[in-house]
Every structure is written in structure tokens, then in C-alpha cells.
């Protein structure tokens, strides 16, 4: 039989029981819609994590000092006072392929200004720090290498600190007191929001690391060193070179530092969302399976109802394959129409979720194509048994069927 006629007959049969067809397709609609929505939201979450990781800075390598044990208590990374400014200088001098280095010293302090006070993280950094973290200065300027050399009492403050202490007014040029030492505010950092671990990155004050070490914390060592590699291609080599330089400087002593890079962190973070996406999609595809069984059920009912029609067709010369094709195409049309509606529904609901929650949502073409092909395949798979049952009917019995 011609393909066009088969399609026409199938559509007519589906339209005859419009309500039933819609309800049958609903299983597929929900299944496909759920898969599309889950994958889209999952992809969006992944993109957001990647963006957050990228916001920590591009191609950043971090050197932490080793852990310290005292009286059997082992501290975490960074607890041992083993990294020095000389280590940072050696890295800057000897390792090629780096574009910025910032020794870091951090502690928390009560800061005062404008008659108000606020407890915040005071970070000793180098002038490279904003570039390494790809962090813009909103107003004013970053302190300079000269400020580092002269152990200047200058600082750059984060957005949160600015909001808390200088609610109505420009903080640039004003004075901030840290441990009762006046620091001149040179600039305000752009807002960066919360990081992956839920910390407010804007709640910080940056001072030259020399000023931090000599005037505030009075430490002789630094807790970590941030290094920015020139590109992602050289990051592994740079990491290796840093390890080598620091190991050489320790002259055969056990290494008391660790070197980590951003890529590892990004991989860990995206792997988690990837797993979640897969899990959700797997759960959603169970409903596709249930939808397929619904199609099979209705096709079986349809074959029984139309036994006489099948008998007539067989009697006037239809081959079993014609009848098989007819029911198979009917099931496939039902499921792929359900698939199309489900795709639209999935895109719509993921857009809605993104609109309501402000999550980014990425509808991937691949997931749409796969969902469509899969829904058509579900129809074919679950339609095959009823169609074969119809095709194998005996024309005499089918004609007599009441």
C-alpha cells in the first residue's frame, strides 16, 4: 500500500478517538518534556558552575604551605609557616609562562570607618591580584608595586565593605582603620558575588602583602601564592616548574607545600552537576518507558476494536505487512507527535524555571534530537507487538468478529 494512504488511514484512526489519542500521547509528552527540562536545567547548572569557576580567575595555580603537626595534632594545608616571600620571588624569577604572582596573607579583623565598624577578611596581596582573579576595580585604582615596596598604608575594599561602612558616599580617598592603623582607600572592587562555596567574595579588604605582614599580622611567612599561567596550554608545565623550583629551594627536605590548579577544581565541580543531570534524566526516562507501555496498551485495544476492519482489508488483498505497517505507523505517529509536544513543553517549562529562579537554562540541540528520535523509537518498539498481532489475524476469523 502507498505510504501516503497509510499515513492518511493512521491519522484518521487517531482523530476518530481524539481524546484517547491525546491521553495516550500524554505519557510520551510528559516523559520527553521531563527529560528535556532536566537536561536543560542540568546543562544550565553546569554552565553556571563553569562560569563561577572561571570567575575565580583564568589558569590560576595556587601554592599552599604544608600542614603542621604539633603534639600529634595535624593542621590542614597552609597551617605550616613554610612559604616565604622569597619562594614567591623565586617563582616569579625562574618560572617562564606566568603572567602574575601574588603572595597571600589573610586574617580577619575589625575595621572602622565613618564611625561604623565591620568584621571582614583582610587580605595581603600583590598588585597582580585583581588581574589574576579577573576582578575589575569599580572606582579608584589598585595599589602599586611602589606601595608594596614602601609598605604603604593603603587598601582597596570590596563592595560589601563599601556598602556597610560608606552607605552614602564615595569611599575612595577616605580612611579605613585596621587595628587602629589608618589605611587610605585607593579603590573599590567591582561586585563579584558569592563563590562556589557560598562565601561573599566582596566582603574583603585588600592591602599590600608587605603592609599586612609588617603592620597587621606581623608574620614572616605567607599562607599561599597565587600564580596565573599565560594560557591553559602551559598550565601543566608551569605547575611542574613551580614544584621543581620550590623543591630545589628546600634542598632535599621533604616537600612542605602543595600545588593545585583551577582545572582540577573545575573538573570536580562540573562532574558533580554532570552526575546530577544524568540521574535526573534517567529518572525522567522511566516515564518515557511508562508512556511507551501506554501506547502498547491502546494499540492492543485498537487492534481488537478494528478486527473487522483488518479482516476486510485482508480479504480484499492486503498483505500482513500492509496491516503491520499501518498499525506501526499509527503508533509511531502517536509517539512522535507526543515527542514534539513534549519537546515544546520541556523547553517551555525549563524557560519558566529559568525565569522564576534566575537559573541559566541551556536547551541543547542534541537533547532535542535525541528525545525526538527516542520517542519515535518508543512508538515503534511498543507498537510492534500489537501491529504484528493485527497482521497475523486470520481473515475469516477477523471478518466474523463481532
Amino acid at each position, binding site marked *: *500500500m*502507498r505510504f501516503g494512504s497509510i499515513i492518511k488511514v493512521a491519522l484518521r484512526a487517531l482523530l476518530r478517538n481524539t481524546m484517547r489519542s491525546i491521553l495516550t500521547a500524554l505519557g510520551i509528552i510528559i516523559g520527553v518534556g521531563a527529560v528535556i527540562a532536566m537536561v536543560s536545567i542540568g546543562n544550565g547548572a553546569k554552565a553556571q558552575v563553569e562560569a563561577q569557576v572561571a570567575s575565580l580567575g583564568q589558569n590560576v595555580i595556587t601554592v599552599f604551605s604544608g600542614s603542621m603537626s604539633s603534639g600529634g595534632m595535624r593542621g590542614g594545608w597552609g597551617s605550616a609557616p613554610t612559604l616565604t616571600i622569597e619562594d614567591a620571588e623565586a617563582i616569579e624569577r625562574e618560572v617562564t609562562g606566568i603572567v602574575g604572582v601574588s603572595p597571600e596573607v589573610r586574617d580577619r579583623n575589625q575595621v572602622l570607618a565613618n564611625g561604623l565598624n565591620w568584621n571582614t577578611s583582610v587580605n595581603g596581596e600583590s598588585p597582580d591580584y585583581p588581574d589574576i582573579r579577573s576582578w575589575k576595580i569599580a572606582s579608584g585604582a589598585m595599589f602599586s608595586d611602589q606601595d608594596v615596596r614602601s609598605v604603604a598604608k593603603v587598601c582597596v575594599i570590596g563592595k560589601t565593605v563599601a556598602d556597610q561602612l560608606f552607605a552614602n558616599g564615595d569611599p575612595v580617598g577616605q580612611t579605613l582603620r585596621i587595628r587602629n592603623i589608618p589605611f587610605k582607600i585607593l579603590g573599590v572592587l567591582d561586585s563579584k558575588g558569592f563563590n562556589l562555596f557560598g562565601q561573599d567574595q566582596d566582603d574583603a579588604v585588600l592591602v599590600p602583602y608587605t603592609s599586612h605582614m609588617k603592620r597587621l599580622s606581623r608574620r614572616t611567612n605567607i599562607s599561599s601564592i597565587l600564580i596565573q599561567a599565560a594560557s591553559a596550554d602551559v598550565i601543566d608545565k608551569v605547575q611542574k616548574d613551580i614544584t621543581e623550583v620550590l623543591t630545589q629551594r628546600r634542598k632535599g627536605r621533604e616537600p612542605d607545600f602543595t600545588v593545585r590548579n583551577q582545572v582540577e577544581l573545575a573538573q570536580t565541580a562540573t562532574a558533580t552537576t554532570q552526575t546530577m543531570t544524568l540521574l535526573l534524566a534517567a529518572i525522567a526516562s522511566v516515564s518515557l518507558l511508562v508512556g511507551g507501555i501506554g501506547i502498547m496498551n491502546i494499540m492492543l485495544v485498537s487492534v481488537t476494536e478494528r478486527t473487522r476492519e483488518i479482516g476486510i482489508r485482508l*480479504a*480484499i*488483498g492486503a*498483505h500482513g*505487512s500492509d496491516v503491520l505497517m499501518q498499525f506501526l505507523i499509527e503508533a509511531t505517529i502517536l509517539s512522535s507527535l507526543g515527542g514534539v509536544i513534549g519537546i515544546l513543553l520541556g523547553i517551555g517549562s525549563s524557560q519558566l524555571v529559568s525565569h522564576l529562579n534566575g537559573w541559566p537554562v541551556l536547551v541543547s540541540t542534541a537533547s532535542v534530537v535525541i528525545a525526538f528520535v527516542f520517542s519515535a523509537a518508543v512508538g515503534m518498539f511498543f507498537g510492534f507487538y500489537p501491529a504484528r498481532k493485527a497482521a497475523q489475524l486470520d481473515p475469516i476469523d477477523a471478518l466474523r468478529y463481532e
Partner: protein
Amino acid sequence: MPPVVKIEEIHKIYESGEVPVHAVRGVTLEIERGDFVALMGASGSGKSTLMNLLGCLDRPTRGRYLLDGIDVSQLDRNALADIRNQKLGFVFQGFNLLARTTALENVELPMLYGARKFTTKQIRERAMHCLDIVGLSQRFDHFPSQLSGGQQQRVAIARALVNEPQVLLADEPTGNLDTRTSAEVMGVFQKLNDEGITIVMVTHELDIAHFCKRNLILRDGVLVRDESVSNRSFAATELEKLSSAEAAAKLTGAKS
């Protein structure tokens, strides 16, 4: 010219139950081209089984069946379907039209299956031509539910004719119709037969059998009588008689 239907010692035994049922017990029969045969018998006489065998809907257990010179007794399912499509036309007691499908589309149906390929235009034209033969071309777009029993049966006859079959097989074609409509349908058959189409029909009504040229009577799976109809009925005269009888009974208005 060879006979269009030639069956030799044909048997059909159903093995499905506990006891095998010997429905047809050795029937030998020849039907010439242009013949008009009524197959009669009480229920259980095997006439339906014989009709299914003649219609290639079923295969004989033993014996040979030559249809238009081709031995069809051992063909497979698909080959039998092609034979039914190309060489046979079926008319059933219950009309068996596809519901919610127009008269024209019902008539087109056999042309959609089968090996011969037609263009959409050819299919339409042939179907319209066949509806014209049975006098229903004005109602081509009606659904079966919008047609009377007699009209539905005429659509079914048009469908049976559309592939220009060698034999038209009718299984109790008037069984669901009243006397007048039966006579009308028999009139259509007689007209087709006059144009040279071979017709075999099953009936249990003697007066319907009298419209045919030849009557076969089956009993317990065996052919017990084969005779020509001497006092043959003709649709035109029968309808005339009915009209005057109805007029006498004031059932309808008298025709001038």
C-alpha cells in the same frame, strides 16, 4: 475456453476441536465464464466453508482448485492475498464497508493494495466508474452510516468490481435486506452477469436463488444437486410485481 473455476475432489477438515470436523467431503465442480451460480444448503452443510475455499480465504485440506487456470490450493498467505485482490471480488452479508470512510474511498480500497500501480487520478476515475455502474455516483461522498442497507450493499458491489475480477463471490448478499431491496440488489447482479461477469453467491432463500442461472445444493459437505434454473426470476418483473402488490395493500402510492 477453460472453466474459470475448477475444483477437484476438494476436502476441508478442521482439526481445531477434539473431534476433527469434516466440513467439505470431496466436492468436484466446474464453473464456466459468465455463469451465475447460487450455492444453497442448510446451516452446517459446508456452504460457508466451500465459499471460503472458493474465495481463497482458506486452503483445502485435500484436492485441487484451479482459478482462472492457476492452481491456488497450495499458495502461501501473501500469494492468496494477491489472488483475492486481482481475481476475486467479495460481497458480504453485513456489507463490511469501512465506517467513517466515504463510499468512494471504500471503492478505492482494493486498488491501494495489490501489485498494479495506479495514479491517484486513475484510482478516482475507476472508483467513480464502478459507483456509476451500481447507480450511486451521486452519493460518492456519503459515509456508510448515511446510506441505506441496499445502497451500502451496492457500494460493496462496486468495491468488488473495481479490480475487474474473474469471479464475483457474494456471501448471503441479501441476508440483511428486505424483499424490495433484495430484488434491487439481485437486479444489479443480473445486469453485471449480462455484461459477462461470473457470479457465485451463497443464499438460503429459494426465491433469491431463482434469480440465478444455476443452483447447487450442498448437504453434509457433499454436492447433492446441480441444476439449471428453469423458471428464472428477473429483477425488473419482480419489482413490478412488488409495486402492484404494495399498491394493492396501500403500502405505497400507486405508480402511474
